[in-house]
């Protein structure tokens, strides 16, 4: 059980922190390479531009999933902060459930659509679209996982009757 937990943690951190950072570095380096080639060597490369935009999409969705895990996302919190912790938790449970259900419903058609696009390849790198945009399905999966974690965390603290301030916004590993 302990081992399973560690593997699980490893996978999540690999996707959200390691892979997103790697994608960001790739994105920035690709543009720098392109600028260098164009202005100093007078060669116009096509692939760095494409690589950078796809790396950006990967950074975006993996980073966003990471943000969901740590509760970093921007929200309108004037009213929310004024509510008692119990109400906050109930609101979170309801909304997280809605999101999870919606994401589960769209998961299958989205995945099928991505597979359907396998024959379309990117212009310069010739990578099938499925691989490039697969990150969206990974994002959906990670979000569903984190939302369920948040929901469980909130329900638990709602029933333990502790009136503390901790909401399930942040899942600590």
């Amino acid at each position, binding site marked *: 059980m302990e081992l399973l937990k560690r593997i699980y943690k490893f996978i999540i951190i690999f996707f959200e922190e390691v892979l997103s950072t790697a994608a960001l*570095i790739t994105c*920035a380096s690709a*543009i720098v390479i392109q600028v260098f080639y164009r202005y100093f060597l007078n060669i116009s490369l096509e692939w760095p531009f494409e690589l950078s935009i796809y790396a*950006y999409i990967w950074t*975006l*969705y993996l980073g966003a999933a990471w943000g969901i895990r740590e509760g970093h996302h921007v929200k*309108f919190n004037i009213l929310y902060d004024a509510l008692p912790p119990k109400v906050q938790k109930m609101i979170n449970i309801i909304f997280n459930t809605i999101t999870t259900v919606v994401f589960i419903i769209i998961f299958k058609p989205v995945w099928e659509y991505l597979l359907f696009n396998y024959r379309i390849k990117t212009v310069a790198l010739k990578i099938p679209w499925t691989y490039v945009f697969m990150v969206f399905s990974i994002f959906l999966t990670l979000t569903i996982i984190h939302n369920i974690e948040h929901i469980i965390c909130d329900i638990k603290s709602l029933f333990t009757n502790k009136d503390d301030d901790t909401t399930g916004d942040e899942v600590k590993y």
Partner: protein
Amino acid sequence: MITIWVVLFAIMFIFGYPIIFSISVPSMIYVILAKISPAVIVDSMVIGFEKQFVLLAVPLFILAAKIMNEGMITERLFSFANKMVGSLKGGLGHVNVLASIIFSGMTGSAIADASGLGMIEIKSMNDAGFNPEFSCAVTSASATIGPIIPPSIPMVIYSMISGASLGHLFIGGIIPGLFLGAAMMVYIAYISHKRNYPAGESFNMRSLIISFFKAFFPLLTPVILLWGIYGGVFTPTEAAAATVFYALILSVVGYRILGFKKLIVVFKESALSTGYVSAMVAAALIFSYIVSREQLPVTLTNMVMNSGIITNKYMYLLFVNLFLLLLGCFMDPIVGELIVMPILIPIAIFFEIDLVHLGVISTLNFMIGLSTPPYGENLFIVSAISGVPLGGIIREMWPFLAVLTGVLLACTYIPGIVLWLPKLAGYVP
């Protein structure tokens, strides 16, 4: 269906559900209920990004700002600004504004300015005998300049929404930004005489030159950026990449402040920030798909036309200003931009308002919003790093807000302030 969409969005938003979900989930429910193929979601939220290459500038500017804040570049700039205007009456107040102007030529977000420079600025002002509330207010107000003077993340997003040229938007922000700085300095001079704030160390040409050379390489950043964009050498995205590269060379090789471990931390933090800033953009793409599918801009334009109140572009600009200022009191700039601008822009086109002009004034509006209570992120940041309670800062903030709003109105009704430089750079309105 449209009712469910609007109501669910409003409820989720008001009750503090993260923005990325409160704008995307109701839209997805709409797609499911309307029996549209969910392929639309992928098309707009993922594949749609392929065409928005201007957005690539977002992660790059985030990265550049983080590297500069970590790499001690801020301190060199502050010391240079101090040697330059510190000897004036109320010297450090002026230094604060000047340092923000220089720093804003390197970073694209007000938050980066307030948190990076703010620490040094507030501390040295307090040590010199300014009252802490005033120091915080100056810092919060001067950070507003950040996204007005290029580079600017809000302008990148505006450019994506409106299709206006990012390069021209950037150039259009230069004069309003300098104008803002000058207006604030006038107010600081006035208040310093009234409250008898101290002048800093006396002016010394030699130490100015020394501090100039110490700050020389960081000072080159805005020069490279502006020269590149203005001269048409770089696209804004490429300029952003060049800035990242230059900042890296400076702080890793030049000043040797950023080690490998710290560098990885900078990259990781930037990946996280990129994630939550850009995910809102992605969510807004599906949101605006529904907005245009329901033809909301058309409906609203008709409503505005038939209301008989807003009949010309001056009235409309006034309405936009008031509306955005009010919105800014409650909303994060990027969120506000993403939700509201797709609706305001078509009406502006109808009134033949120049989109670069509108872009600069809307950015200015949202930036003022960062310093307005009850929800002003700059205020929260300066309060957090200084430990001064919000109430006092807000009291000192009102005159600054009046100054900022004055500049805003000037830029709104004298389009030349915004459009003169872009026109020189070949912009045809």
